[in-house]
């Protein structure tokens, strides 16, 4: 009897609900919807309440720079990435939070982020996985969301050493929207993001002077003519040029004296040379090995200077050219007396006297010019 009464009550309730619900002719088998309860918003989808693209404001502060590896063209750093955007679906009454926002940190922030939409902004030039990472998430009553990430890792930083040692480098961190294209999510910055994007005053990098952080918007090209929003935060650092003088410039400029010595040491007596050419050529060959050894040493220590045009590679080139000139003078003038054979001993004598002052002036002038060009 109890079972029969329950069945009748259920049938009565169903009949009542069917009578109150609007007719749904295409879905007669569907269960009746709960009365007047709208479906919960899908918070993990792109917020469209403020239209597209969703503007994500970005700032990046440099907390620490552990070091710059020029040969690897990378730097190890800890950075704070701040992203903020507006998601009106997350609004709530301000009275609910006396401190003015809701906050989650660490795993709680990760769990909260899984329940809501957030822009997938990656650090495009981060090499490998971050060595440390932590997050903080704040949601304000007006729907503003602020996501703060502290990331430590190694970042790729292409270095331009053409004006070494007077170069200024940009230690870049690239923020790229990895999921949504630029017509859906765009990255931007305003005054407070610029103020956030600065190096910690305590940052010190050996051999470098720390400058300011520069933010640049550079969209990244994608497939089918699409693009992805990208902001590059670049910390400008100036090389302390004076610190490179003892290790690099003193030996490079000193080695320039070797070919000059091999030219100077001879003497001309009315067009006749007094020292055998092979003795002087030995000096040149010794100098050649010395420069090769120096070249190998510097290239091993600073491989970035080995490729491309820069002051060091040009000074090495000048060394080789000076050695080649000295060798040519030794062989043609001192050994085979080419000038005498062509124009007589008087011209040879004057040619020698000209060479012993003009060659040092030309080489010193060229070396100075190469350094000044780098400094310009």
């Amino acid at each position, binding site marked *: 009897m109890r079972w029969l009464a329950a069945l009748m009550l259920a049938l009565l309730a169903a009949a009542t609900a069917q009578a109150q619900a609007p007719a749904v002719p295409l879905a007669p088998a569907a269960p009746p919807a709960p009365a007047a309860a709208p479906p919960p918003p899908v918070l993990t989808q792109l917020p469209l309440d403020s239209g597209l693209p969703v503007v994500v404001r970005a700032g990046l502060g440099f907390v620490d720079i552990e070091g710059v590896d020029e040969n690897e063209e990378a730097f190890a750093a800890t950075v704070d990435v701040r992203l903020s955007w507006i998601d009106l679906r997350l609004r709530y009454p301000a009275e609910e939070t006396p401190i003015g926002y809701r906050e989650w940190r660490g795993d709680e922030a990760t769990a909260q982020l899984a329940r809501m939409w957030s822009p997938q902004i990656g650090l495009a030039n981060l090499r490998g996985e971050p060595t440390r990472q932590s997050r903080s998430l704040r949601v304000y009553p007006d729907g503003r969301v602020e996501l703060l990430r502290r990331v430590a890792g190694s970042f790729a930083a292409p270095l331009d050493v053409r004006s070494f040692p007077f170069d200024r480098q940009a230690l870049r961190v690239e923020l790229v929207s990895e999921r949504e294209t630029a017509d859906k999510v765009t990255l931007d910055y305003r*005054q407070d993001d610029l103020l956030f994007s600065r190096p910690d005053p305590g940052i010190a990098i050996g051999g470098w002077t720390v400058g300011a952080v520069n933010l640049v*918007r550079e969209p990244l090209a994608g497939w089918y003519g699409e693009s992805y929003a990208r902001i590059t935060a670049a910390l400008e650092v100036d090389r302390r040029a004076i610190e490179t003088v003892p290790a690099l410039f003193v030996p490079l400029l000193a080695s320039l004296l070797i070919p000059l010595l091999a030219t100077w040491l001879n003497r001309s007596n009315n067009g006749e040379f007094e020292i055998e050419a092979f003795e002087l050529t030995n000096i040149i060959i010794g100098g050649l090995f010395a420069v090769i050894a120096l070249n190998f040493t510097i290239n091993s220590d600073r491989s970035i200077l080995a490729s491309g045009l820069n002051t060091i590679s040009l000074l090495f080139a000048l060394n080789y050219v000076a050695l080649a000139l000295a060798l040519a003078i030794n062989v043609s003038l001192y050994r085979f007396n080419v000038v005498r054979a062509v124009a007589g001993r008087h*011209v040879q004598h004057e040619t020698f006297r000209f060479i012993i002052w003009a060659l040092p002036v030309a080489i010193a002038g*060229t070396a100075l010019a190469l350094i000044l060009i780098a400094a310009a």
Partner: protein
Amino acid sequence: MRFRRSAPRALIVVAALVIAVLTFAANRLFGGMTSAVEQSQVELMRSIIAFNLEGAAANALARAEMTASDPLVRELLARQDRAGLLAHTQAMFNEQRDKYGVDQAQFHLAPATSFLRLQSPALFGDDLSRFRPIVVAVNRERVARKGVALARTGPGVFGVAPIRDMAGNHVGSVEFGMDFGALLDRLKAAYGLELTLFIDEAPLRAYANGMPPGAITEQNRLGTTVRLHSTNWTLMRDLVNADDLRVHDEPRDWVRDAGGVPYGVVLYPLRSGSGEVLGAIAVARSFAPTRGAAGRTDVLQWLFALLGFLVLAGAAVIVIRGWLVRPLEAITGRFATIGDGERPEPDPDDRFLAEEMKALAAEHERLAELVEAKRT
């Protein structure tokens, strides 16, 4: 005077002078080209500011005119229903502020009384006729206007449109003000410029008493102006000083170094609709590329001049001494031996003598033979 020294010296001095003058002229020429390029950059910076201020004003006016044509807005303002107007326009204003840098929106009652500030709804009822000439003009002439102005809540780029009730009677006006900060930040993002907004302190203190506290501080004061926004104050404080801002009623420009980098700076005055100077925008752009290229060109020109001088000097010395002076000295020495009873050995290098020298050597031979024949 010895020909051996004075002749080459004269030629070398002339060659050095000619090369120095030519190099200096070439340097001046390239310097002029660099200046022309930099001047075009300065003009471009000025045009960018003027064009974007004009664009911001047009955008503000477009928003004002659209709002002024909204029938509900006209009706609510005509009824002086402040709460209704706020409810109708608040969401629109919030979105415009968050996405498009709209900083201020205000409704006025004729002739110039603030009726509702959407950015500060609690502030209303004040008379604007003393410091808002555009609002007065719009309500007097009933024609839309735009321009830079200093409002109670700060400076902005404004567009003001008259509002009529549904019967066509003028009831007031509406204005939209674009935020200078957002405008300057966008210019930095788009053009890589650094910008700072300076507003004269006296009108700011007199009129803008609704600004957030902390805007007018000793830290932000520079001369007679107050810095209200900067995209990079660390840099700009080295480029603009109080003396530069003492007079800012006309556009000015200069080049100044900051952190070892030359920057071109343009000071663009801001005038209200009535022509009163309100302040200035300082715009800076790095001139390092042009200055660096000019410096490198200078160094290369002087290096080439040095090498050219060495070649000319060498040619002069070798030709005069090697082909003329030394052979002449040798033949003179032979003449000195005539009558000594010793005839010098024939010089095999005499075959390289010039024809004139050969004739002289032959004359010596002839005289020596004559003297010897007389002796025997």
